[in-house]
């Protein structure tokens, strides 16, 4: 495995164990907890930890205590705090080289059978909820029977957990071991678990586990109608189903301080408070390499901000210890110049977004759709862009001119694809457009379409911060005789236009080009160039628009169908690589720049924030850096 590649492939069928074996450990705990043990309000640390706790190798063994000060922008920023402490049976974590490794979390071991249809997991011995109640397969069965299969709580089955239309099956082996079975091979199941957990009601819940001892009182299989109504009333919601769901008043960690969790911290002051506070979970299952129970940090405070400038002001004033969200590269110099004032430094991660122009292949303007379908026009679209100029002026020169293709470091990376049609060549672009039959021009020098109208393109973005990039692109396109009409519109309208097939071209951050199988929909048209085609594909022709019989997007779909039924990762990856190749060579998406830095603000008292990691939703953002082992200088 190339050490530069940051995803370590997992061989299927191997048995992996974590935890400490053979050694007798003396566990240490945070002073804040030791006090409670002294006072008799908490059992001693040895009783709280599993017999063989998971070891998280801290970059540097840290000090206990302190409050990590952060900022959040309101209820919509719920994923900011969530991603600091997501739990999965297997979670992406960074290795020493910054590579992403699938690492077991609260399980002792897992196994996959030869054709990837059966996955066996064993929970840690002595794993406990944050209220001290043991976690057992009862909780797993509760998840499966009373939530996953409960159509009142999860109204529709997600295809991710029902490949081939057959939902996954659960078999409880003993108090700690359970098996998950599929009707067909599912080689990427572990990676999907790491990204999506077990799906609905929300991916912020740990995979397979719901605290039965607490939540059964809110479940219709256990509680009576009256009890449910009373519970809804107590939580101030309209119906008992509102207690569940992604924002469920009782079941979302973020709104209910009483909910037992297994995360490193738990909520203490829930929103809508001005400052949302999380405190450490005394029963957290992991220790560092010296047997110190994690996390190191006692509390996390998320301060509400309403405007990005307020966040910048907090940063310059040194009011944040580590901030990973809400920062922009445009402010890079501002952050750097105020490092002294705010006594912090920046830690750069790698951006995986590829900012791209996405033509709508199914646009309602048929003449335009026909032009988009012409490969020459698409090539001209791409080589007419002066990527270096855009990067120099809008990205402080810090991004790479790349095509919409797997990003460097991904195991699917291919340099040829990444630089496909990225050479700036307006002369060739002009020539290609002439060849495509667009050789007539109007008085202003713009090309005329076959129907005699001016070749103009409305490009929509939802973020005013990108208006300048679009202005530069407009200049580039004007040079090849295409009139670009950049429009900054409200993001809801923008989303709506896409959903309703009502746009010509969008300017978007094209993401998920890292571990492709974890979310291959981008390549398949979803949310972009062929949203209507993808609708047609995913609804078996019930909705959307059918692509022409020879459209290469059909090849991509066929390849994915093949990959998802392969019995080994190697076999599946062959198809995935081919998907990426067809996608990029077709040039459906015009990548402009990407792979620039993502800025994190880290105060000089904060330690163990690893640099040069990848920032991607698939790896759950900051979670990759293993926040449990962050620590703050204590006086």
């Amino acid at each position: 495995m190339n050490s530069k590649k940051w995803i370590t492939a997992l061989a299927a069928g191997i048995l992996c164990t974590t935890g400490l074996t053979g050694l007798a450990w003396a566990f240490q705990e945070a002073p804040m907890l030791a006090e409670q043990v002294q006072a008799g309000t908490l059992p001693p640390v040895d009783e709280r930890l599993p017999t063989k706790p998971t070891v998280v190798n801290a970059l540097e063994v840290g000090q206990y205590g302190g409050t990590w000060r952060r900022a959040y922008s309101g209820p919509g920023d719920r994923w900011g705090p969530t991603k600091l402490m997501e739990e999965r049976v297997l979670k992406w974590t960074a290795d020493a080289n910054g590579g992403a490794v699938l690492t077991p979390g609260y399980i002792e071991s897992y196994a996959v059978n030869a054709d990837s249809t059966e996955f066996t997991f064993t929970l840690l011995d002595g794993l406990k909820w944050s209220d001290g109640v043991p976690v057992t397969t009862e909780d797993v069965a509760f998840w499966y029977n009373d939530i996953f299969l409960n159509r009142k709580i999860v109204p529709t089955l997600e295809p991710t957990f029902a490949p081939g239309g057959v939902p996954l099956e659960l078999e409880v082996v003993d108090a700690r071991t359970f098996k998950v079975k599929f009707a067909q091979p599912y080689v990427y199941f572990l990676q999907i678990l790491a990204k999506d957990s077990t799906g609905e009601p929300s991916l912020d819940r740990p995979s397979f586990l719901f605290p039965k001892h607490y939540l059964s009182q809110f479940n219709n299989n256990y509680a009576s109608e009256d009890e449910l109504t009373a519970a809804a009333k107590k939580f101030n919601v309209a119906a008992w189903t509102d207690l569940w769901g992604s924002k469920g008043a009782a079941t979302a960690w973020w709104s209910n301080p009483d909910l037992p969790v297994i995360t490193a911290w738990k909520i203490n002051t829930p929103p809508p408070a001005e400052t949302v506070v999380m405190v450490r979970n005394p029963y957290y299952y992991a220790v560092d390499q010296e047997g110190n129970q994690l996390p190191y940090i006692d509390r996390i405070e998320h301060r509400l901000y309403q405007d990005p400038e307020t966040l910048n002001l907090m940063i310059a004033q040194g009011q944040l210890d580590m901030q990973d969200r809400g920062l922009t590269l445009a402010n890079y110099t501002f952050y750097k110049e105020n490092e002294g004032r705010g006594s912090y430094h920046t830690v750069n991660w790698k951006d995986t977004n590829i900012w791209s122009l996405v033509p709508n292949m199914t646009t309602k303007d048929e003449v335009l759709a026909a032009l988009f379908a012409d490969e020459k026009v698409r090539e001209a679209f791409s080589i007419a862009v002066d990527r270096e100029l855009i990067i120099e002026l809008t990205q402080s020169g810090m991004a790479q001119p790349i095509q919409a293709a797997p990003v460097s470091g991904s195991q699917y990376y291919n340099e040829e694809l990444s630089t496909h049609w990225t050479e700036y060549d307006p002369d060739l672009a002009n020539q290609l457009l002439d060849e495509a039959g667009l050789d007539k021009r109007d008085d202003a020098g713009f090309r005329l379409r076959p129907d005699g109208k001016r070749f103009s393109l409305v490009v929509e973005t939802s973020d005013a911060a990108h208006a300048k990039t679009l202005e530069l692109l407009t200049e580039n396109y004007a040079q090849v005789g295409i009139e670009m009409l950049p429009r900054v519109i409200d993001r809801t309208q923008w989303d709506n236009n896409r959903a309703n097939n009502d746009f010509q071209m969008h300017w978007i951050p094209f993401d998920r080009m890292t571990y492709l199988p974890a979310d291959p929909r981008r390549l398949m048209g979803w949310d972009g160039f062929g949203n209507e085609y993808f609708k047609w594909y995913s609804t078996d022709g019930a909705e959307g628009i059918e692509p022409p019989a020879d459209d290469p997007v059909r090849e991509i779909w066929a390849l994915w169908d093949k990959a998802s039924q392969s019995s080994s990762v190697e076999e599946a990856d062959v198809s995935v690589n081919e998907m990426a190749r067809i996608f990029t060579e077709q040039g459906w998406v015009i990548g402009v720049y990407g792979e620039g830095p993502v800025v994190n603000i880290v105060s000089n008292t904060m330690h163990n924030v690893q640099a040069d990691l990848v920032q991607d939703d698939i790896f759950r953002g900051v979670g990759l850096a293993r926040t449990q082992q962050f620590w703050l200088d204590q006086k």
Partner: protein
Amino acid sequence: MVAFIGRRALLAIPTLIFISFISFVIIQLPPGDYVTSYAAQLRQQGDYISIAQEAIMRQNMGLNDPILVQYWRWISNIVFRGDFGHSLEWNAPVGTLIWDRLALTLAISSLSLVFTWIIAIPVGVYSATRQYSILDHLFTVFGFLGKGVPDFLLALILMWIGFIYLQIDVGGLFSPQYQNAPWSWDKVVNLLSHLWIPLVVLATGGAAGLIRVMRANMLDELGKPYVETAYAQGLSERQVVWNYPVRVALNPFISTVGWSLPALFSGDVITAVVLNLPTTGPLLLQALKMQDMYLAGSFILILSVFTVIGTLVSDILLAWFDPRIRYA
């Protein structure tokens, strides 16, 4: 007068019903609904929810129902049970959300309003009686500087100056260490050191307008023959100016003073956003942008009640201040 108030109260009922319905419709006028906004917000931060999840949310929130059904569900709860409904975004009762922020909002907005009046009215009178004096010009330039620079920008500049040159903590109402601390003398001092920026920003914007209007009306009045007559009778300047011309000149101010009532309740939205003030204004702004219609609708309903009351108060004050005005 009692009959007058009674008649107005009766008229207010259909007005409010009409307002509440039209507002409810207008809030949902932008494309999409709350779920679309929510999905869009997530997408902006690189998070996603599936179309199936969106459909579930819509169903649970009753967003698929006809608008009349939604309206009735909302308004009937308010009328019959005093329940303003649930904020879709915060998943919390609207009443609680607003109530939590109300005290601070009222404190800041009434303080800045009174501050504005205390500055503007005397300065306006002074500027008129000493027209074209150096101070008059100074007030003019200063006033329009406040008026001509966007509040948002002014607040940012003041905060930056405060931070770089005065080395004080800026943004919000408290330094982080006092945010959750119990009230103490230090916390009050800390509050005051934060409060001056919002007060200056709000007062400069509001005062300039009032100063100009006061000055213009005073100039009209001071030139009238009755003032000369009063001077001729040997009255002092103070007696002449403050007894009658000021009362007349206040007419435009009083005509609209009642509308400060809803403004008190929502505070100045943009200033609050940039200064990170925990007032109700940003809550309303966010609710409107997200189409969180129960929160936004209830908010607007409350504001419109205050508007109606404010108009009435202004009318009563007009009659009281200016004896020439009679309501038939």
